[in-house]
Every structure is written in C-alpha cells, then in structure tokens.
C-alpha cells in the first residue's frame, strides 16, 4: 500500500500522467497518476491519503523548481498529472468527504488582456489542491468583489503585464481591502515586485506560480 502511495507521489513529481503518456521517457509504458489513483481507490486507500500523496509530489517538484533544477514546463507537466488525479477525486470533493484547501480567485486586471502567466499560476495552484476560480482577463474591481462575496474565506490573486495596468491593480486591491479587510491578496506579473505589492496594500507578491503556492500554504 505505501509503495503505491509513494509511486503516486513520484508520478506527480515527474509529471507521469497515465500509461499511454510518453513522458518522462524512462517511465514509458509504466502506470501513471491516472491508473495508480484508480487502483489506490479500489484498494481502499482513502481519497485523503491519495490527495496527501499528490500534494507531496507537487511540493517536491516545487522545491526543485526553486532550486532551478527544473523549469516551468516540468511544473506544468506535474500540474497536468495532478489534473488526472483530480478527475478521480471530484466525486469526493462534491460529496464533501474531501475538502479543497480553500478557494483562490484569480484574474488579470482591468485594461490587461494578457492571460498566459495567469493561466500558468491557475494550473499550478489547482495542482496543489486549491479550488481556483478563474475570472479571466480585463477584470474590473466589481468582478473581484462579486467573486469574493460568492466564496467566503477565499484568497485573491491579481495579474498584470504593464505598469499602466498596475494602476488598475492598485484600485482593485484597495476596493477588496475596503470591503473585505480579512481577505488576503497576492499580486504578480512581470512589472511587479515585492516593493510594489507592499505599496499598493497587497499582502504578498509572487514571482512565479510557485510563489503563489508558497503564499497560499503560508496562510492556511
């Protein structure tokens, strides 16, 4: 049993999705996260234990990313393997027997149409066990406010590409903080820095998806 769980952790860390997936080359033909999860649930490994095994895999790849041993593509393969696991776990989340770590509302701020950076963050945060509510691009303050209302206890992430749209970001942070002072907000995107984040009243800054994960995990 514990070997199965350890294998699952390894498949997440290495981004091995299923038996048919050719990546990584040295695991070709072997069972992946998809089959191992199905087998684990059949063999009465509880969904909580499956989730914990996967979170450990995501933690390991995140650490290697932090050490520059792997790069964004590897992080995304791990997130994709995690998605395969989530498909099996969805019924447990729906019935409430397994709980997501919390919800993360994420959007690109008003005036900005740039979505790839935000989407990468969404993918990796989801892979780390959070429910992600993706509001899309060009999001006005009210859109964030409505989403916060609908997801009590959530954390908010804002993304921007240019310094001109950072002004809108500041407005959104202020609006959220005014109405929901307890809601934690993290900002990211190319023109941002920890300094800029602090100045606009955000609680955190993340340089990459792993930064968002570290922030979220630190607030639970």
């Amino acid at each position: 049993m514990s070997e199965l769980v350890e294998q699952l952790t390894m498949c997440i860390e290495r981004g091995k999705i299923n038996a048919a997936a050719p990546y990584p080359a040295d695991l070709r033909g072997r069972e992946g996260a998809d089959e191992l999860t199905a087998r684990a649930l059949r063999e009465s490994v509880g969904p909580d234990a499956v989730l914990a095994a996967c979170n450990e895999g995501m933690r390991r790849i995140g650490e290697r990313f932090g050490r520059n041993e792997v790069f964004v593509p590897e992080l995304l393969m791990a997130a994709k393997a995690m998605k395969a696991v989530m498909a099996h776990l969805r019924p447990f989340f729906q019935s409430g027997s397994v709980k997501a770590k919390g919800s993360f509302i994420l959007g690109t701020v008003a005036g900005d149409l740039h979505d790839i950076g935000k989407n990468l963050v969404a993918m990796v945060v989801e892979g780390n066990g959070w429910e992600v509510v993706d509001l899309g691009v060009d999001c006005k303050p009210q859109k964030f406010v409505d989403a916060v209302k609908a997801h009590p206890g959530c954390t908010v992430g804002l993304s921007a590409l240019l310094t001109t749209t950072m002004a809108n970001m500041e407005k959104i942070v202020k609006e959220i903080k005014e109405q929901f002072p307890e809601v934690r907000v993290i900002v990211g995107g190319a023109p941002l820095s920890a300094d800029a984040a602090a100045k606009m009243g955000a609680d955190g800054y993340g340089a990459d998806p792993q930064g968002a994960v570290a922030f979220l995990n630190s607030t639970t």
Partner: protein
Amino acid sequence: MPLRQSRQPDDAYVVEIGFHDLGVTKADLEIRLGYEAGRAPEPFGGMIDEVLAEAPGRLGIQAGYRLVPLSRPADKRDGLLIGGPFFRTGTIVAGEFARADEAAVFACTIGPSLETWASDLTGDGEPALGFVVDSAASEFAERTAAVLHDGVAAFMRERGRGVTNRYSPGYCTWDVGEQRTLFSLLPDGFCGIRLTESALMVPVKSVSGIIGTGKSVERRDYRCDRCGVEECVWRAVRTKKKSETTDKRG
C-alpha cells in the same frame, strides 16, 4: 539577403520580414525556457521542434517605421522632441540621441495567431506546449524588432547616416503610457496594431519604439550601469552574460 521596404505616404515605410530572417534556432528557444542549448529534456525538445515547424505558417509578421524630425531641447534635458510632441524618455535615452536629428518611430508584430494557439493549448489541457508556444512567440517578436532595427540601419547607411540603439516606452525609466503619443505619429492601424486604453498593444506580441538617425550617429551597446531601474530584465541578462553585445531591448 537585404530586406525590402516599400514607401508609404508621410515618410512611412513598410519592411518585409519573413520567418527565416529571424534566424531563431532550437537552441535559442531552449535557452529561453531555462535549459542549456541542446539539453532540453523530452518532451520539451520535441515541443520546440513542433513550434518551429508550425511557426512559418502561423506568423503574420508586419513591421515598419516612419521618419520624423528629432531634437533635444536645451531646457528639458530629460527628453526629446520627436515629430512634434515632447517625450519624457529620461536622460539615458535622451543622451543616446544627442547627435541624432531624425527618428525612425517603429512598430512591429508577429500577429495574433501564435498567441491564440498558446491560449487554446493552455485551455485545452496542454499547458506545457502552450507555454513553449508563448515563449517562442515572444522570441519571434523580439527578433522581429531586432531585424527591423538592422534593416533601418542598412537603409540609413545607403543615405550616409548612422543609427542609435532602439528604445521602447516602458524601458529605461521611459513611461509606457507615452506609447499613446508615439502611436499618434504613426499612420492609423499601422502594421495592424491597435492600442488599448491602458497603452497595451494588440496583438500582444508586438514591439514599438524609436531609433535615432544622423550623419555622425553610432550604434553603441546599452549602458545598464547608468540606469537606476534595478529590477529591469536587461540589467539581469547583461550582468549574467557580460560579453553579450547584441541588443534585444524592447
């Protein structure tokens, strides 16, 4: 092969640039993704091959410039008069243009297709390939600007003139908001690029900027040591690779 350009009304020029002019290699894209040249693990190496094979059919490169008079006012040393309006470019850029008397205001794009492809892939559960496509698209856009710059340099050489480095709003303390004024100097819809209210160019994979020209102008390397923008990406790149002399800014 020298580039071809065609003249438009009001001293504007459209320059023809194709995929092969960009000279982007697999190694360039590997390095961009974080790997060493020739060392991207599978399946990422294969993804790069796929993008390079698809790119020629998907690139919609458009590039051009307009020549306008340029001067540095004696009473406002932190900027330049370009084609009429004053641009607060900061003293670094203004100083680089001290000997120039004309500016090539340029814009270029690789079109929307790669951007859409990357977005679709990310949405369709292929985020790694989506990321590779997006990174490649950025490389193509940066290279387009570099090739356009070389083209302008060659056209100017024929007229016995030199060119400066190129500079873009949003770099070297030059406020990106001035992009709006910069675009007012270009014909409407130039290169198929439009600006949003927040000065974002659409398609996203586009670059704008200025190149100074003049009889005694020389192209020098960028001087990151004189700039105060600590978090600038090029400062980081230049500090890492001190020997690099090619200019990629903007």
